[in-house]
């Protein structure tokens, strides 16, 4: 028989009137059981063992090594696809996309600007190892090891060529994304790269509807525009692009051997192969060219200053990204009587009993960081735009086909199309020996 205890009305009253008094311990003292009932204990499943982190770093190094070997020594597209599938399975579906070097940019920024933040060693390793490999071999990380790049590369079934007038401005979006990501991470506000990782929902087979939608849309777009995330959004790709320019053993087109057949350029899905300029620049136009270049270069500081100015104007809206600033804004409005109701945030803050001035102080500290950071971010974006403009203002005299090392993602598609690829030369020699081809053209080895 269930009985209504006599304290019900009191309980209901307490429940209705005094919900604020929480945390008072043991209103009902724990019983001493006469039946000798043993209390169960709550289960506490342990997190992943720490050797997982070491394994991840080891797998990252191994995958980068294998990918670099397959790309540069074996020139094997098929091998790259193999590593690609491995990366999707291991770093994507098995490790569920975390930690990834792209996101590590934010941890590194936070560690650089916030002395209170301790960078986990594994995150630092994930940031630096691909950079070291890029320094040696070019963006082999992007080619096959990055799970985001890998999944996009696999769906690229019918690529179209994006015209350069569209490619160049779109690729500048990456710089905006990088600047914003570093700004929000360094101020301790948010990790937007992680928040808007388009493929994480696919790797985890779980996620919010719009993120799944974004991932699927990106993959569908990736069928015709190869690697849209890498080319137009990836902030880590910007850094790897800089490093790749200085890489030691990047794949290159040998001007001595190049027969100017443009097959590699036609194969390249990311517009990374530059075409030689056929016409020499007429001497009469050289003066005007130089003037335009010098003028653009002189305008560069102005552009950077303009960017910093725009950044300064954006301090207010940008700082709203931070929870502390939003809380202080809301508290201020509540104190001024703009709102009569409290949000969960302000309710929780008021419940702590700390003075409202504390919230204002915290917000002021954050805003101060934004006041410094946003103009720098603006200047950085402006510098990226300015440098691109400067490059466009300069009419390059390029005598031979050339790989743009910053844009090349080392996907190894072009190798097989080069008439001088060892496999093609060998095939040609065999065909010639069998009498099915006329003697090799001069210059072939």
């Amino acid at each position: 028989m269930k009985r209504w205890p006599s304290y019900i009305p009191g309980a209901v009253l307490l429940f209705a009137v005094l919900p604020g008094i929480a945390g008072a311990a043991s209103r009902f003292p724990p019983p001493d059981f006469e039946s000798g009932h043993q209390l169960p204990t709550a289960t506490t499943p342990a997190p992943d063992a720490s050797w997982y982190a070491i394994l991840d770093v080891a797998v990252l190094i191994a995958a980068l090594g294998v990918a670099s070997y397959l790309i540069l020594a074996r020139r094997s597209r098929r091998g790259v696809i193999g590593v690609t599938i491995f990366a999707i399975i291991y770093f994507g579906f098995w490790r569920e996309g975390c930690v990834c070097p792209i996101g590590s940019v934010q941890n590194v920024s936070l560690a650089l600007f916030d002395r209170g933040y301790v960078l986990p060693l594994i995150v630092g390793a994930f940031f630096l190892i691909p950079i070291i490999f890029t320094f040696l071999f070019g963006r082999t990380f992007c080619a096959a090891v990055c799970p985001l790049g890998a999944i996009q590369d696999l769906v690229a079934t019918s690529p179209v060529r994006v015209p350069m007038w569209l490619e160049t401005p779109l690729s500048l979006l990456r710089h905006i994304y990088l600047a914003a990501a570093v700004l929000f991470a360094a101020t301790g506000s948010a990790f937007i790269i992680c928040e808007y990782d388009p493929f994480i929902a696919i790797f985890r087979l779980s996620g919010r509807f719009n993120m799944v939608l974004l991932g699927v849309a990106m993959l569908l777009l990736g069928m015709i525009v190869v690697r849209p995330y890498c080319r137009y959004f990836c902030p880590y790709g910007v850094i790897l692009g800089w490093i790749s320019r200085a890489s030691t053993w990047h794949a290159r087109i040998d001007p001595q051997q190049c027969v100017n057949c443009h097959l590699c350029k036609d194969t390249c899905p990311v517009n990374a192969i530059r075409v030689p300029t056929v016409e020499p620049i007429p001497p009469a136009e050289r003066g005007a060219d130089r003037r335009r270049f010098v003028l653009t270069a002189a305008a560069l500081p102005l552009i950077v200053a303009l960017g910093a100015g725009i950044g300064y104007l954006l301090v207010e809206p940008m700082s709203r990204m931070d929870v502390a600033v939003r809380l202080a804004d809301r508290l201020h409005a509540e104190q001024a009587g703009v709102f009569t109701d409290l949000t969960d945030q302000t309710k929780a803050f008021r419940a702590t009993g700390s003075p409202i001035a504390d919230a204002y102080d915290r917000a002021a500290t954050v805003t101060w960081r934004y006041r410094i950071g946003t103009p720098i971010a603006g200047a950085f974006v402006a510098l990226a735009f300015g440098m691109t403009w400067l490059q466009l203002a300069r009419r390059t005299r390029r005598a031979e086909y050339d790989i743009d090392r910053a844009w090349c993602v080392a996907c190894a598609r072009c190798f097989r199309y080069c008439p001088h690829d060892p496999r093609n030369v060998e095939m040609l020699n065999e065909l010639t020996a069998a009498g099915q081809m006329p003697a090799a053209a001069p210059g072939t080895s």
Partner: protein
Amino acid sequence: MPDDTPHSTRRDFLTGWVRGSALLGTGALAGVLSGRSQATETVWQIDPDKCIQCHRCATECVLTESAVKCVHAFAMCGYCDLCTGYFEPRPNELNTGAENQLCPTGALQRSFIEDPYYQYTIDDKKCIGCSRCVAGCAAFGNGSLFLQIRHDRCVNCNECSIAMACPSEAISRVPAETPYKLKRVNET
């Protein structure tokens, strides 16, 4: 080509500079970072004393079934017959019918121990971390029910999306050796 040689020399010079500065920059960055890093792993956890039971844990996690679940500190529990974490505040009749239970998924289970004590256990598989029982227990009980991030489910995101939405900043990183912030019996 006549101007080929000076052209490539200039390029070599530039490449050398770029390479040198890239190496220097990477080295300097690695140096600074190694000073700021440490090997201890950290994981996300909820501080039950800061939690205000806003229900966001159930919905904000990147996993569709949240990594946050309710944990019961049995030693703190009063084993009440009328558990405000288990029953609706105003049940029609005191029975274990679904219409009287606070838990939307039936994860909080009640079993008779001895008169008049009942034990409340949580079925992890059913719990969605909505904190209704936690709120009920905190409001009128001993506060023995509380939310924790379960590390068999948590994928340890770089940035916890629940932490971003948490109104009371109850979620922070803790060392992986002590991955839980369990409630204990108050020694007073």
